[in-house]
C-alpha cells in the first residue's frame, strides 16, 4: 500500500472563516440551500452502484475500436437507441436504457496509482487528498463518507436510516476499509452496513427483526423498563459518548418497530417476474432492495458490486468480464427501467462508479515500478482517467461527457476529481457543497471543495 499522509483543512480559505461552533467535532448548522443554476434540487435520493477494484473503462463506457490491440483487447462497441452513443457489447440491456444515461469518460485522481484503499477513501468521501490521519483500515479519524455527511445535514425521516450499504462491506483481508463510515463526524451518522446476500432464500437483515417469540409489545415493555433504569443516572446523558449510545438506541428502537422498514426489506413482496428481471443474484436483488428502500424514504443507497478487489482484473481480464458483466448488465438495466416505469427516476440519482480504471495497455507495469502487478492478460491500476455513468435525479440522459485520447488513458477535455463527485451529489440533493461542517479539531471545513458537474444537468 502506498503511503500518503496529507493534511486537508488548513487552507487559507478555512482559516479565514472564523466562528467555530466548536461542539466537539459536531456539526456546523443548517446546510445552505444549493443554487443549482436556479433550477432547484431534483433528487430526493441517491443509489450509488459501486464497482470496487476498478473495471476497465475501455471495456465498458469508453470503447476505442480504433486503438491498438494491447489497448482494445476484446472490447467491441454496440450502438444504442441514442444516436452516436455507443457502449460495450457486453451491456446489451443497459444500452436500451441509454436515453437515461449520462456517461462521464473523464474521471481522474490526477495520478496513475493511488491504489484501492486510498482510492475508496477519496472517492467515497469526495475529497482530493488523503487526510493526514489516513490509515489503510477504517478508523474514527477517516474523512466522512459522502452519505454520512448527507445523513448529518439532511436527517432521514424518523425511524429510517439515512444511508444503507448492501450486500457486502469493503474490506481488505477481512478488515474494514475507510470510506464507508462517518469517520470523525461521529458514529451517529455511520451508514447502516448490511453484509447479507438478499438473493439468499434465508436472507434477513441482522438484528433488524425481533428474535423468535419476541413481539413489538414486549420490545416496548423492555424499552419502558430501560427508561426507568436510566432515570437513576440521568446525569450521565451530559456526556457526549453516553448521548451517542442513547441516540443509537432510540434509532434502533424506532427501526425495529417500524413496519415500513421491515416491509422494505421483505423481497417476497415483489413478484417473481420482477425479481427475475433484476437477476437472482446478490447484485440484482441488492439493486431491487435499493429501489424498495428508496421508495420507503431512505436517502442514500450504496450497492457494492463485490468486495475491494472484485473488478481488479490484474489478470484474466476476459474471464473477469464474462463473470461480472452479465449480472451487472441485468441488474443495472432492470433498476433504470424499473425506476423509470415507476416514475421514480426523476428524483433518484443513480451513479455507476468505481475508484479507478485500468491501464490503457494490457500487461504494462505501473510507471516507475519494477514489480509488475499485471499479467499478460490483465491490466494495472489507472487513476489518470476512467469512466462512470449517471442517470435520474435531473441528469440529462443520452449524452457522453468528456473526451479521452486514443487509448482511453488521458482526458482530452475537462476532467472530474473526486471532490467534483461529492459536490455534484450534494448539489443534486439540495445541499450547497460549500456548506461547512466542523472537523475533529473544531475547524470548519466545506463538505466539498469540488465543482458541480454542471454538464450533467
Amino acid at each position: 500500500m502506498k503511503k500518503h499522509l496529507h493534511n486537508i483543512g488548513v487552507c487559507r480559505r478555512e482559516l479565514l472563516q472564523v466562528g467555530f461552533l466548536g461542539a466537539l467535532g459536531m456539526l456546523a448548522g443548517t446546510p445552505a440551500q444549493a443554487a443549482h443554476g436556479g433550477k432547484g434540487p431534483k433528487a430526493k435520493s441517491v443509489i450509488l452502484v459501486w464497482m470496487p477494484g476498478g473495471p476497465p473503462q475501455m471495456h465498458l463506457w469508453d470503447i476505442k475500436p480504433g486503438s491498438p490491440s494491447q489497448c482494445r483487447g476484446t472490447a467491441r462497441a454496440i450502438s444504442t437507441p441514442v444516436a452516436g452513443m455507443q457502449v460495450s457489447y457486453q451491456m446489451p440491456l443497459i444500452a436500451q436504457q441509454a436515453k437515461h444515461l449520462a456517461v462521464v469518460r473523464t474521471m481522474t485522481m490526477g495520478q496513475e496509482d493511488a491504489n484501492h484503499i486510498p482510492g475508496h477513501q477519496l472517492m467515497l468521501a469526495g475529497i482530493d487528498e488523503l487526510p493526514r490521519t489516513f490509515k489503510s483500515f477504517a478508523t474514527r479519524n477517516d474523512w466522512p463518507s459522502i452519505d454520512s455527511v448527507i445523513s448529518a445535514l439532511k436527517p432521514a425521516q424518523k425511524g429510517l436510516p439515512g444511508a444503507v450499504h448492501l450486500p457486502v462491506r469493503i474490506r481488505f483481508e477481512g478488515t474494514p476499509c475507510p470510506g464507508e463510515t462517518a469517520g470523525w463526524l461521529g458514529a451517529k451518522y455511520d451508514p447502516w452496513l448490511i453484509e447479507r446476500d438478499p438473493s439468499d432464500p434465508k436472507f434477513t437483515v441482522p438484528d433488524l427483526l425481533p428474535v423468535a417469540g419476541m413481539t413489538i409489545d414486549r420490545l416496548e415493555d423492555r424499552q419502558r423498563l430501560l427508561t426507568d433504569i436510566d432515570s437513576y443516572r440521568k446525569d450521565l446523558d451530559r456526556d457526549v459518548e453516553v448521548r451517542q449510545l442513547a441516540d443509537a438506541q432510540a434509532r434502533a428502537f424506532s427501526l425495529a418497530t417500524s413496519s415500513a422498514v421491515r416491509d422494505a426489506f421483505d423481497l417476497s413482496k415483489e413478484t417473481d417476474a420482477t425479481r427475475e428481471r433484476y437477476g437472482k443474484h446478490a447484485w440484482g436483488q441488492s439493486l431491487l432492495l435499493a429501489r424498495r428502500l428508496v421508495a420507503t424514504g431512505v436517502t442514500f443507497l450504496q450497492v457494492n458490486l463485490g468486495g475491494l478487489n472484485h473488478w481488479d482484473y490484474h489478470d484474466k481480464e476476459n474471464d473477469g468480464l464474462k463473470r461480472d458483466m452479465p449480472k451487472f448488465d441485468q441488474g443495472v438495466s432492470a433498476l433504470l427501467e424499473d425506476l423509470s416505469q415507476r416514475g421514480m427516476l426523476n428524483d433518484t440519482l443513480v451513479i455507476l462508479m468505481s475508484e479507478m480504471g485500468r491501464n490503457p495497455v494490457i500487461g504494462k507495469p505501473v510507471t516507475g515500478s519494477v514489480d509488475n502487478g499485471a499479467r499478460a492478460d490483465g491490466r494495472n491500476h489507472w487513476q489518470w482517467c476512467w469512466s462512470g455513468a449517471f442517470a435520474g435525479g435531473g441528469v440529462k440522459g443520452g449524452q457522453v461527457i468528456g473526451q479521452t485520447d486514443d487509448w482511453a488513458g488521458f482526458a482530452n477535455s475537462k476532467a472530474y476529481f473526486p471532490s467534483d463527485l461529492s459536490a455534484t451529489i450534494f448539489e443534486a440533493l439540495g445541499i450547497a457543497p460549500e456548506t461547512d461542517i466542523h472537523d475533529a479539531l473544531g475547524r470548519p471545513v466545506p463538505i466539498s471543495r469540488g465543482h458541480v458537474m454542471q454538464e450533467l444537468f
Partner: protein
Amino acid sequence: MRLWLSLLVPAVAIVSLAAPPAKKTPRTGGQGAYFKTDIMPILTRAGCNSGPCHGANAGKGGFHLSLLGFDPQSDWESLTRFIGARRVRPDAPDQSLMLRKAIGLLSHGGGPRFSKESAEHAVLKNWMAAGVPGPTDADPSVTTLTVTPERATVAVGDTRQITVTATLSNGKIRDVTPQTLFSSGDGALIEVTPGGLAKSLAPGEGPVVIRYGGKFATARLLAPFAPARTPQSAPDPLDRLVHQRLAALGLPTSPRCDDVTYLRRVSLDLTGQLPTPEVVRAFSSDSDTKKREKLVDMLLNSESYVDFWTQRWSDLLRSSERTLGKKSRDAYHGFIRESISKNKPYDVFVAELLTNSGDSVAKPAVNFYRAGKSEYRPALTPEELGETTAQLLMGVRLQCAHCHNHPYEKWTQRQYYQLAAFFGRIEAQNKNEAEGEIKSQEMGEVYHPKTGEALAPAALDGPMLAKDFKGDRRAAFSQWLTAPSNPFFARLLANRLWKYTMGRGLVEPVDDFRVTNPATNEPLLKALTDEVRASGYDLKKLLRRLVLTQTYQRDSRRVPGNERDDRYYSRFFVKRLAAEPLLDALSAATGTFEKFDGYPDGTRAIQLKDPAVASMFLETFGRPPRQAACDCERMSEANLGQALHFLNAPTLQAHLSDPKGRLAKLKAAPPRAVVEELYLASLSRLPTDDEAVNAALQLARGTSPEDLLWALLSSREFGFNR
C-alpha cells in the same frame, strides 16, 4: 484552475520531472530581503504552500511549493525558473504572475491573497526588483520565537493580541507577528484571527498554535469557569497538582465516590471484569478502613489483571496470526503475558522487544519487528520501524516527515530517516508461513530520499551514532530510549497510564505529543513522568498509586460549578466499556459464557489471543484489527449496529434465556430477591428502594425477569465505567 489542471495533467507530471537539479548558486539579496526569513514566511502566511494549495505533493495549477516551505531552495527554483520565469519579473515586478495573481488581477484558483497596498506586496516587489535573491547558507535563520503573552488569564469572550518576536541567527530580533501563521489548537476553546487576535470561546485553557520560519510555539489563554479558589489540600502530590489546576480554573470537585461504585470502577479498569454479586455484598459490608487498598492489591494480583493487560499490550504490539503466523503469534502472546505476569519493568520489557535476535518462536520478542508487516515481507521496513517506535514508544507521530518536514512539529525529513537508520541493519527472513528470523547485521544504509546521502542513525533530539559504529544499532537505540535522561519514553507511559485510569489523557490523542498540542496539566504530567522513572517502570506500583488517588476516587456525578469540565478531572470521567470487557460483563451478568472457536468453554473475551477470532459481537463493538501501533484503532463509539445488536441479536437473547444461566437459577426466588440479584450482577449495586419496589411490582404483574435483565444490560450505567 481545475480546467487547467485537467488539461495539463500529463504536462504537470513532465514539469515536475523536468525540475533541474539544484546546483546553480543563487544570488544573494541587495535590498536586505532574505529569501528564508522575509519571502518564505509571506508564502506560508498567505497559504500559498499549504497542503490543499501549491504545497500539495503534485502542486496546484502546475505550480508546486514545498509544504509550508520546508525546502526553500526548491521553492526558489519553482518561483524563478519555470514557465519562462514569468512568475517573477525583476524587470517589471508588477507584471509578474506571482503578484498579479496574489492581488487578484489574474484569475487564481485560490482567489486574491493580499492587496496591492499590503506590506506583503511591497516586500515581494522589492525582492523582485533586487533580482529575486535566493536562499543561501549565509541567510539568517530563526533561532527562537518569543510569544507575548505566552499565557494569560482572561474571561470568556475576551480577546488578546498575540505578538511574536523572532531571534535570528545573526543576532537580530524582530517583530514577525504580521508574517506568523496562527491557528487554534482547540477549536472548542479558542479562536484566532490571521493577525493573531485570539478570543476565548469557552472556559478552559485554549492554545493558539504559532508557526514562523520552521519554528513552533504556543500561546495560551486561560478562561476560568468561576473566580479562582484556594486549592484543596491533599496528601498525594499528584492530587495536589490536579487541585492547583482546578483552583486556578475555579472548578469545584465532585465528592469521593461510594464503595460499590469504586469496586466496579477499579475492577473494570484493572481487570476488565465486573465484580460478582458476592464480592459486591462482601465489599459493602467490609468495615476495614483500608479495604480499597486491599481490593486494589487483590485485583493487581489476579489472573484477570494479567489477561486484561496482556490483551491491551497485544493490541498495541499488533500480535496477530495473520501477520506473524500461528506459532509465532502464540510465542509472542506468551512473551507478553509472561512479562505482564512477572510485572517485568516496562523499560526492560521494551529493551527486550528492541534488542532480541533469533527465531520468532524461540525468541518471541523479535516479533516486534514482524508485527504489522505486509504479507510477504519478513519484517517491517526501517521507515515503518522508525514511525512505529516513535509513536508507540515515544508518543511522537513522525509519519508526516516521511515525505516532507512535519507541518505541525519541528521534526524534519532528515530526522525521520536518521531515526529509521537505527533499523537499517536488520537481517530478516521468513523461514516458513509461521516462523521468521530477525538478526542484526553489519551492512545496510538508510538514504535521505532527496539528497541520496547515507544517514548515520540519530535519535530525535538525541545523539548521532558514529559513522563507523560497528555494534548493534538497535541496542544503541534501546539504550538511548530507556535512559533516565530520555524525554519521551517515561512521559508517554505516564500519559497512557493516566488515560487508562482517569479516562482522558493529559495529552490527547494519547500518543501525539507536540509543542502545538500541550498537556492540560503540564506540572502534573511532569511529576507523573518523574514517578514513572523513580518507580523503576513498575506498572503495578504505578497503577496502584493512580487508582488510590483522590482524583481517581471522585464521583462521576457533577456538582454545581463543574458541569462543563471535560478535561481537568474535577470529577471522574466516564468511559465506555470496550468490546471485550463489555462482552465479558454481559456473560457475567447473565451467568453464561460466549463460545469462541478453538478456545475451551468458559474462555473470556479478554483472554482471546487474536483479533481474528470470529465474533459478531466483538466486531460490531469495535475490536481493533491490530494493524497499527495506535490506540486509535479501537472504535468505541456507539452506533446503530451496536444498538440493534442489543435489541434483537439472537445471541444476546440466548444468553438471557440460557437454561444454565443466572435467570434459570432464580426461578423460584421471590421478586424482590430477583431484582436485587440482577442489579448486583449487572450494575454492581443494589437497587434503590424505589427501583426495587417498582421492578418487583412489574415482575409480580407478569413482566419477565429476562426483560428486566435485558433492560439492565442495555442501560447507560451498564455500558459505561462510571
